[in-house]
């Protein structure tokens, strides 16, 4: 076994609380399947036999249920619950399952909807023997897709600055705009080794990482790192260029550190000491003719970070409302190209109806007369009245839409009830909401007031 797969599903969906108020984030439907099915399925397709899922204790049962019963997932699932009240970052979670980690690992977030074959990433990891290999994707074009909630500020505040070297595979600079004041600081030593760095701002981190095993050991020692994306990755990228401490240096450092009080010494652990080469590598290096010649040397640091950038196929992280909508849209597009049955045979209809090519209609849906569906997803057991028009929308399960309503670019959560003749545009209807008849909404979020307060 080369990699162990870990799916991070303990997030609370804090960036789309309107949706996650009633449904835990991993179970939000994307293309009528729980979101977490996509990464798990991706791993299954790649040939993984076992997947570790880290989930909140309260949701772990539901997740297992959803994956095995509803989605027919065959890989063996090891669901590790973490306490609901513990506010753990992803690195904290890794630390929690440290004992299970025997090999290098693959960490993926539950909100990644991605059609990239994993072997491409693994090949890069193997080829460069990299410490960290991450998947990056072009930012989704949020401009046209998310008509929904245009008013909400999208995107820019979480831009990542990613500097890539030469052939665009090695990551040499990584910073998040949120962490920067007003300038991106680049070390000259970095530029000396990589004198031409290409900085991209249009990439998003797909939150899929291949990590060497020793990184987990390091996390065990260095408890100050709590998230992978926010802290561990930038740390590793930075440490590519710091010098490995030689034994002499260590003692010197120890001398210096005498001046500092004990509390600060905690983090002075040399990250490089974890990356011990096996004997064979050391031998190979010492016998190869290049030994000692690399002056500007990568030999100082054995930490390397590489990336694979998705150029084709879909790759969306459904972690915000717009990207959730985008993920649904893209999945429709993806499915429409395949040969899967998009309209469940169990639907009941009354009279004429019109279902466009990019539509997904779930089990037990009943459609009224002259219903028109375009580019939309209808969840299970929905009841849709006569003359209803739905375009570009996501309707979850058990939703009732009365006669003559028009929905455009909407997200309607479970058990909502929409009265007749209402017109909704680019809006979000929370679960179990009741929309009165003839109501008109545009660009609004309709949820419980208590939930609003939480927001």
């Amino acid at each position, binding site marked *: 076994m080369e990699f162990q797969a870990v799916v991070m599903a303990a997030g609370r969906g804090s960036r789309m609380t309107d949706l996650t108020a009633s449904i835990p984030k991993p179970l939000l439907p994307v293309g009528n399947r729980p979101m977490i099915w996509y990464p798990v399925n991706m791993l299954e397709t790649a040939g993984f036999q076992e997947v570790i899922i880290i989930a909140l204790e309260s949701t772990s049962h539901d997740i297992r249920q959803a994956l095995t019963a509803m989605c027919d997932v065959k890989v063996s699932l090891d669901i590790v619950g973490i306490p609901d009240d513990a506010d753990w970052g992803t690195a904290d979670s890794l630390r929690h399952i440290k004992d299970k980690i025997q090999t290098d690992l693959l960490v993926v977030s539950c909100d990644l909807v991605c059609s990239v074959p994993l072997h491409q990433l693994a090949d890069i990891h193997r080829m460069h023997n990299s410490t960290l290999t991450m998947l990056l994707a072009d930012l989704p074009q949020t401009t046209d897709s998310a008509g929904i909630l245009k008013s909400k500020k999208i995107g820019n505040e979480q831009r990542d600055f990613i500097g890539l070297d030469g052939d665009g595979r090695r990551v040499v600079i990584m910073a998040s705009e949120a962490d920067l004041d007003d300038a991106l600081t*680049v070390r000259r030593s970095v530029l000396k080794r990589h004198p031409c760095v290409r900085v991209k*701002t249009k990439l998003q981190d797909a939150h899929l990482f291949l990590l060497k095993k020793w990184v987990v050991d390091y996390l065990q020692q260095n408890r100050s790192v709590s998230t992978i994306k926010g802290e561990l990755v930038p740390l590793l990228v930075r440490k590519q260029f710091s010098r490995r401490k030689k034994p002499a240096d260590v003692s010197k450092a120890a001398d210096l550190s005498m001046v500092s*009080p004990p509390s600060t010494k905690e983090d002075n652990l040399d990250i490089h000491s974890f990356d011990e080469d096996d004997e064979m590598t050391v031998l190979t290096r010492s016998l190869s003719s290049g030994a000692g010649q690399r002056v500007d040397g990568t030999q100082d640091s054995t930490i390397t970070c590489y990336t694979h950038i998705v150029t084709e196929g879909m790759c969306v992280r459904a972690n915000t409302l717009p990207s959730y909508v985008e993920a649904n849209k893209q999945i429709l597009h993806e499915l429409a190209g395949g040969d899967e049955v998009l309209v469940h045979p169990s639907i009941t209809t009354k009279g004429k109806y019109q279902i466009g090519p990019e539509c997904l209609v779930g089990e037990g849906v009943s459609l009224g007369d002259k219903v028109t569906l375009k580019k939309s997803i209808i969840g299970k057991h929905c009841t849709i009245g006569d003359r209803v028009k739905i375009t570009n929308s996501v309707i979850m399960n058990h939703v009732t839409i009365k006669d003559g309503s028009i929905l455009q670019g909407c997200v309607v959560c479970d058990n909502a009830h929409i009265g007749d003749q209402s017109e909704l545009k680019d809006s979000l209807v929370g679960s179990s909401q009741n929309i009165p008849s003839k109501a008109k909404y545009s660009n609004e979020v309709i949820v419980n007031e208590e939930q609003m307060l939480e927001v």
Partner: protein
Amino acid sequence: MAGRGRKKVDVVQQEDVLQAVIIADSFDVRFAPITKDIPRALMPIANRPLLEYTLHFLVAAGIQEIFVFCCAHANKILKYLSDTGWTSDKAPCQVITQVSEDSLSPGDALRLIYDRSLIRTDFVLVMGDLVSTINLQPIIQQHKQRRLKDKVTVMTMLFREAAPRHDTRSSDDDVVLVTERDTNRVLHYQMVEGQSKLDLPLDLFSDQNDLDIRYNLLDCHVSVCSPQVPQLFADNFDYQTRNDFVRGILVHEEIMGNQVHAHVVTDEYAARVSSPPMYDAVSKDILQRWTYPLVPDNRLSSQEQDGFYTLHRHHVYRGKDVFLDHDSILEENVVIGPGTRIGSHTTISNSVIGQNCVIGDNVRLDGAYLWDNVSVGSDCSLTQCIVCSGVTITDRVVVEPSCVLASNVVVGPDVHLPAGTRVSLHPAQTQGAEDDFQETTETVQHQTYQPDRIGAEGKGYIWEDDADDSLVSLMWGLRLEQEESSSEESEESDEEEDDMDQENSLPPDDSRIFYTEVLDSMQRAIEENINADNLILEINSSKYAYNISMQELNVCVVRCVLESAHIRASLMATASEYLAALKPLLQPMKGLLKNYIRNSDSQQDCLLALEEYFGTHLNISAVLVSVLNFLYNEDILEEDGILKWYRHPAPSGTLTQKAQQQVRAAATKFIQWLQEAEEESEEESD
């Protein structure tokens, strides 16, 4: 000047004429004292004046009208140009000289060009010390097209791709450029000389384009400029150099809207002879034919009749009538000018020797640049130096690297010039030395030569390096490596500091200051034999000042005791040395420790401090037994406490488990003894 009016043929044609401006003055003193006698543009490199290379480069690019801007030594440049026929009608292009004696910077030069309204169209701006083979035509075309599309394009700068630390990368042109990927537009331009970090403003990234941060560029100081450039210089009188200009354009981009572009060449040659190290590097490149067709054996113009060289193996170029005595060896990369005589058993490598030089027997030349009419006596050794025209080096002279001998100097016999010596017939000026200045008006100080330093027959003054003068550090030689390594060090160290900042959640300042304070007072107490009570008083007062918890204080005190012994013994002390230093300390510190280590909690603090200290200094961990023994005997530590500590290692943030184990292993002997003693005492009590 006069030329222009005469040549006005018709206006339409004038518009199409390609113009260039050569700034034939460096406005600096890198080559002092050579440039007291001769302007930099006329310094020979591979036996050809620098200006010649620059002119040929422009002619090859199809430039039809060249303005040569002269400032210092203007008459010499004028004379040279007319002697070589550049200003005559037969020249391949029109060369017009512009003289201004009071310009102090390239900016002044461009302002003057604006005043005289010489520029009518896009023009090429170069420095007079450029050696380049870049084909400018396509670049000029690109610039023109860009300007047709967008009027705000004011300049295209030329860069050559060269890795950091490339030989021909001058350290003062250490530039980082941020360009837009698709358009090559320059967004940020920053000199990084001596800086370890580079801050890129975030607004650079607001556009959707990918950016390239490039540190692999050699600034050729060739720019294709739009006609409004001289005007911009005139409008902004604070622009002194092109760098000021570029920075100004970028800073005011939002207001003025002007844009600068970069063009990067990869396989053509360009370099400026901007300092002696560059002189060395460019000479080597010329000899090794990187600058083809600008090589010694290629006649550039019909005027160069005597400059006829034949090329031999290993890049050896020999002029006409060279006389080599028996057993003299030209190893590699050597140019010997016509009419030069070389004595027997002389070895020459990586050197350029001018016309009509005389070199004696048993001479060793390596990396030496001898200009015309130099005579070198026998048994000399010259390494990496510039020897100007007419210099006489008599017998048995050793010249170490980085020396400069200006025109007509005489040195020797039997002297040894240490590295970095500069000798000139002009006495060194103490201040206000400007490069390329003509005969200075000040009265010549009648100093005497120093025969002990330049030899009995020596003629010339030694120019001392002024320690404050930063320019001097740019002289060639050893300093390169030193500087590199030192900057590396500092980089490394602040990287570590950085890491500390970033990784430590607690700002350690207060407790660190407190720690050093305690350490200081303790050392003073030891030296001046201050009473323990007073020391306690002192420590307690700083405890309140820095708001330190009792536990931290305990740990701190123990550490300080251990460390002051370490300081006394020297930090690299072995276990026995350390013990010797520690022993006399423990007794006076007994009171202090007793004051702080009073209950079982503080005992644990104390033990933890011991553990940490010896864990980080494993080489002296053997001393731990003695320390424990002492503290036990003094009843500062109790049996239970020690055993508890020994058996239950507390998770330590600083020490690895391995180190913790090693510390415990060091203490084992004492623990065993303790346990035995315990058993015994139990038995006894039974």
